[in-house]
């Protein structure tokens, strides 16, 4: 900001209007005056042709300039008409100097306004370049201090945790700034702390402090506290209000940007987790003598805990698993990966392991992990012995698992054991069914039975049983496709809340 130089208003008038005053003086000299001059309390300001010091007699007419007295003098004329003319001239000079003063003050105001606009532009520009809240607050502090010619300043944002930026040094305690924010919030306006009250707020001694609220989403979210010598006048307060309004608007945008950024980051991580999870599932269908096998999974928008797997090591019976770790998100995905790995490991480690053996060992191994995370997993494990045409299975809380004998009625194979991670010991029994040509087993997850339509109605077990029965003549791959199509048609565009996973085994 440019400070205007201190110049006597009459001197400014003389500088600006010397040619006209010359004309005025010449007119008096031509009318017979010996000299013409302008006199102030400090002495002669100007005279034409020169001050006739020898003569003390003359006409004079007083006028006021910015509260200071001055006089026009004419020497060598003494008549009443000249006196009247001189008084008219003095009045004109006074009017002109008054207009000059008004013009000066308007110019100063204009310069100040322009300075403030430039400062606000500078503030906007410097805050806009900051994408971090603390950096943006530091820019706010720096610009505000320059604008107010302040000695020190603090800005406090009531975030989690609170953000405090102070200059030149951390002068004010965070608790005190928090108290000032509450005070400003309660009053709904700025607060001015006079020097005598400064110590009780821990503010700089012998300084006036102005505390302005910063509104974010119409809430007092922060304060700007500026301390300086001398009192704050009305333009100062208005200017700081404008600064804080500008800062609040920018912070709103910044917080919105940061939220979007954080969400985009989470979304990317979720997508990655989903990709990792899908890659953990078998990438090829197994070739098993006597069986037609197909499987698929359709993940929900959020990463979940569904899984399926096969092991068909040479010399060992074909073994398949379908499971569902409860809940969603990264913890469910991690536990799903651990469960799948543990089933594989137990299958290979335990010699001639039956499905119930594997489930029992799995529960023993993972009960503590599930307890810590606060989740559980339902698991169905089937084991097919081609020579005997028998399917052994064990079911730890998993549904729906549907068996439809060739030409027969579809039934649920209900679980007999609690899910993995619920009780310290999981007592599953091995169950056995003959599995011949045309027999069908559909092991799905609750994403099928709990799919909803726009009216909020569940697909349910009855519909699922009927559907499986009606498509039992199809190949395993066709049945998988039909199931997904039927669920999609039922949902009629409703959001898919849960993963939908299915393994279809058909005797051939």
């Amino acid at each position, binding site marked *: 900001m440019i400070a205007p130089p201190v110049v006597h208003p009459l001197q400014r008038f003389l500088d600006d209007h010397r040619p006209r005053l010359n004309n005025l003086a010449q007119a008096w000299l031509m009318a017979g005056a010996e000299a013409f001059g302008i006199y102030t309390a400090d002495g002669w300001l100007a005279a034409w042709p020169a001050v006739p010091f020898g003569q003390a007699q003359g006409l004079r007419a007083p006028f006021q300039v910015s509260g200071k007295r001055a006089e026009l003098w004419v020497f060598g004329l003494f008549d009443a008409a000249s006196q009247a003319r001189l008084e008219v001239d003095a009045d004109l000079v006074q009017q002109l100097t008054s207009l000059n003063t008004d013009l000066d003050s308007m110019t100063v105001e204009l310069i100040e306004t322009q300075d403030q606009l430039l400062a606000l532009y500078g503030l906007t520009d410097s805050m806009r370049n900051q994408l971090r809240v603390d950096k943006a607050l530091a820019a706010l502090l720096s610009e505000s201090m320059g604008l107010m010619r302040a000695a020190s300043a603090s800005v406090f944002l009531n975030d989690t945790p609170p953000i405090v930026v102070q200059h030149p040094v951390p002068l004010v305690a965070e608790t005190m700034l928090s108290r000032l924010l509450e005070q400003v919030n309660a009053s709904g306006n700025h607060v001015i702390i006079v020097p005598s009250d400064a110590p009780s707020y821990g503010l700089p001694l012998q300084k006036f402090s102005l505390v302005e609220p910063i509104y974010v989403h119409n809430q007092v979210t922060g304060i700007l506290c500026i301390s300086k010598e001398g009192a704050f006048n009305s333009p100062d307060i208005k200017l700081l209000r404008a600064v804080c309004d500008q800062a609040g608007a920018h912070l709103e945008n910044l917080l919105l940007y940061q939220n979007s950024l954080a969400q985009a980051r989470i979304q990317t991580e979720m997508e990655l987790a989903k990709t990792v999870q899908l890659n953990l599932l078998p990438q090829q269908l197994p070739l098993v003598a006597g069986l037609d096998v197909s499987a698929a999974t359709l993940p929900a928008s959020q990463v979940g805990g569904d899984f399926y797997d096969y092991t068909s090591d040479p010399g060992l019976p074909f073994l398949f698993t379908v499971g*569902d770790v*409860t*809940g*969603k998100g990264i913890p469910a995905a991690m536990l799903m990966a651990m469960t799948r790995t543990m089933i594989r490991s137990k299958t290979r480690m335990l010699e001639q392991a039956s499905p119930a053996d594997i489930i029992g060992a799995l529960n023993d191994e993972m009960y503590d992990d599930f*307890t810590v995370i*606060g*989740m*559980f997993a*339902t698991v169905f494990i089937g084991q097919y012995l081609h020579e005997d045409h028998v399917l052994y299975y064990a079911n*730890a*809380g*998993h*549904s*729906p698992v549907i068996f439809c004998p060739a030409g027969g009625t579809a039934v*649920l194979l*209900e*679980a*007999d*054991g*609690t*899910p993995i*991670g*619920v*009780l310290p010991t999981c007592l599953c029994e091995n169950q056995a069914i003959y599995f011949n040509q045309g027999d069908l087993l559909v092991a799905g997850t*609750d994403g099928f039975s*709990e799919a909803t339509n726009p009216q909020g109605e*569940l697909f349910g077990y009855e519909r699922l049983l009927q559907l499986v029965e009606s498509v039992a003549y199809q190949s395993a791959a066709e049945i998988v496709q039909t199931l997904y199509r039927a669920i999609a048609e039922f949902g009629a565009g409703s959001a898919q809340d*849960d993963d939908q996973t299915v393994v279809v085994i058909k005797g051939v």
Partner: protein
Amino acid sequence: MDLKTRMSGNVAIAEMNGRFDALEVPKVSAWLDTVTDREDSRIVVNMTGVTFVDSTALSLLVKGMKRARQHNGDLTLCGLQKPVKVIFELTRLDKAFNMYEDEGDALHALL
């Protein structure tokens, strides 16, 4: 879903109605954290008004039951409507929880 909680002697009771799903889990979880974090924590979850329970809600109940038992207490369920009871039966969680017809029976069993 509405959640009303109260104490009957030293038994903490939660009464719910409507859908008990992932959306409702946080507030029930906050309550369970307070009542399962003490010795001899006895809890009854009255599900008379509950029409549906999803797997996230089941997880929460299992977690609460395990914590209560760790503190030599128990979390019991009562008043399950048929569709909700079926969910517990299909997952065999009916073997894990102590379940009662009504709140009176549940309180009596915990005393």
